[in-house]
């Protein structure tokens, strides 16, 4: 009798372990299936990706230079979150940031056809519907970067400053009142933010700046910052609150005023966590779909302007996937875009994770 129970328990415990690995399995499956559907891109003849033969030479020639200058190694996504770096970039918004991995993972040995496919993908025209469809993802990638940069340039300072205020300067009552309200913001569904941007914010921005287009990258970026602020705020707040109290007390005891203590002692100690928050915020801004789908105008233009309509990577998937034919080049291209989003968010998460862990290590190391 007793033994049978033990066997039952053994089986149940194995079952628990199996289910627990479901999330691990899910990641593997997501990776496999999103990439599997995108795989045919490497087997595709270049002709199927661009309509007429006459256009191949033209776009091909045009994109050689582009792919050369964008062939930078995929790396340093962490420079995104760095406010000084961002400021310098915002000075020349025309530059499409080469740090974003614009190329899908291409085996370098696929030879000539893949090279042509690659140059098609890296061309500046996204016209997926029609007799001569063109699948150049540059305008989409540029659109995503524009919106995400605007969003992070607004959300990072606001989120971090707000966190610094509620965790250090604010009197207790102000903290108790403000923190829950900012956290409520995280619960506003993105489709509601998109709706707000579409109906209210777009008209407001158009009037204030006197713009030609109602829906544009700027509106999308501002709306996106509303989705990113609570994320950056929460992570920065956690990080600032975790700074040991004796740091503050020591600094105050040495005669430093409160603001200097907060700015020069507490803030630097919390930097890794804040940085992780900004990175995760950037990931959110690049991947978020509904806001950009509703608020950016969705025109795949490759232009340096921040006040023209843009179409982002995520919005293209959201808007076009419902209408494509299964197995079509267009279908495959949308999965390529999905793989791109997967890679970017994976990389940003991994880097953010390292920063958070470093902070924990420092904390425990300091305590011992």
């Amino acid at each position, binding site marked *: 009798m007793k033994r049978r129970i033990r066997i039952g328990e053994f089986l149940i415990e194995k079952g628990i372990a199996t289910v627990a690995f479901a999330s691990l399995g899910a990641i593997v499956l997501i990776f496999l*299936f999103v990439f599997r559907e995108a795989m045919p891109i490497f087997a595709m003849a270049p002709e199927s990706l661009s309509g007429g033969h006459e256009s191949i030479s033209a776009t091909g020639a045009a994109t050689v230079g582009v792919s050369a200058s964008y062939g930078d190694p995929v790396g340093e996504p962490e420079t995104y979150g760095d406010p000084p770096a961002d400021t310098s970039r915002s000075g020349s918004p025309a530059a499409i940031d080469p740090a974003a991995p614009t190329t899908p993972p291409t085996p370098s040995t696929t030879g000539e056809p893949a090279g042509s496919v690659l140059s098609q993908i890296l061309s500046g025209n996204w016209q997926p519907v029609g007799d001569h469809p063109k699948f150049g993802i540059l305008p989409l990638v540029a659109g995503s970067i524009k919106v995400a940069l605007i969003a992070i340039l607004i959300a990072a300072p606001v989120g971090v400053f707000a966190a610094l205020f509620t965790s250090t300067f604010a009197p207790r009552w102000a903290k108790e009142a403000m923190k829950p309200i900012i956290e409520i913001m995280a619960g506003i569904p993105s489709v509601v933010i998109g*709706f707000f941007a579409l109906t209210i914010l777009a008209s407001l921005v158009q009037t204030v700046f006197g713009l030609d287009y109602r829906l544009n990258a700027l509106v999308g970026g501002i709306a996106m910052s509303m989705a990113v602020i609570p994320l950056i705020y929460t992570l920065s707040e956690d990080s600032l609150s975790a700074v040991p109290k004796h740091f503050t007390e020591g600094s105050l005891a040495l005669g430093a005023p409160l603001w200097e203590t907060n700015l020069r002692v507490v803030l630097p100690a919390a930097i890794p966590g804040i940085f992780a928050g900004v990175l995760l915020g950037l990931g959110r801004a690049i991947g978020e779909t509904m806001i950009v789908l509703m608020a950016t105008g969705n025109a795949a233009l490759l232009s340096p302007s921040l006040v023209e309509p843009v179409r982002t990577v995520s919005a293209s998937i959201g808007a076009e996937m419902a209408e494509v034919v299964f197995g079509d080049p267009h279908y495959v291209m949308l999965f390529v875009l999905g793989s791109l989003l997967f890679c970017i*968010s994976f990389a940003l998460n991994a880097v953010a994770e390292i920063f958070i862990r470093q902070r924990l290590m420092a904390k425990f190391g300091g305590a011992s």
Partner: protein
Amino acid sequence: MNIPKKWVGRGVALVTGGSAIATVVLVLVVIGIVVQGGWGHLTRDFLLGSPEQGMTKGGIFPAIFGTFLLVTLMSLAGVPVGTITAIYLNEYVGQQSKAGRAIRFAVNTLAGIPAIVFGLFGLGFFINFVGGGADKVLHGGALHWGQPNILWASLTMALLTLPVVIVSVEEAIKTVPRELREGSLALGATRLETIWKVVLPQSMTGILTGAILAISRGAGEVAPILFTGAAYFLPNLPDGLTDQFMELGYHIYIMSTQSVDVEATKPIQFATTLVLLILTFTLNFSAIFLRWHLRGRALR
């Protein structure tokens, strides 16, 4: 650059305080505008009626029902898996074990993947692979399971909200005192009996919190269901797992971007947005309340 330090201090306080106040005001303004725009239209007929005259009149009951069905199916699939994962992470493997770290990494990654990629996965895996495969075996290739429907949308959403459940349940399990477990084990109960009779009952609040937060998230996300099951307009409510469905968030998106007369349907759009906001806020507040309750217990 001889600005008195006192002024710099005031400036710093002003900038940080201003950011916090601006954020708070922004939240209140958004909520205020939605309430003001939608409150007048929020009638009984609107909540319990169907869209009429090409969606320019009538109510949103099918969308409310579809949302309800979506989150119910999603919870049925996601909450047990999330709970079991949290139990495994806390009761069976240590913080530093390879298995625990691998699963935690997977959960963190899952939480960071954009919602639209989940939609792609739902399409590639559930609809084309599982559904299409089932059709080949069961229906000789005729389209039955291999198309967007509420089951695939719910499962996709369950995957998206899995990290929310896991984090919440873990937090609750951690508040169960170690002494209770040890007492149970000392009395001769096996590990599984301890989990079933001691840890789980003590963690019910956390499981509930996790489910509520997951539902709130699931009700608000639209991107994953754009092409895995949500429909523009349906004359009938879904009555099976292979039916498509209407959904509140999707309804807002459609009405505000693709309606025949966007201006004339403004009240409907605002009222639908208000319903969605009320739904998610109610859920979030109950989760906050339960969590507060739970923290209270941990301190006692």
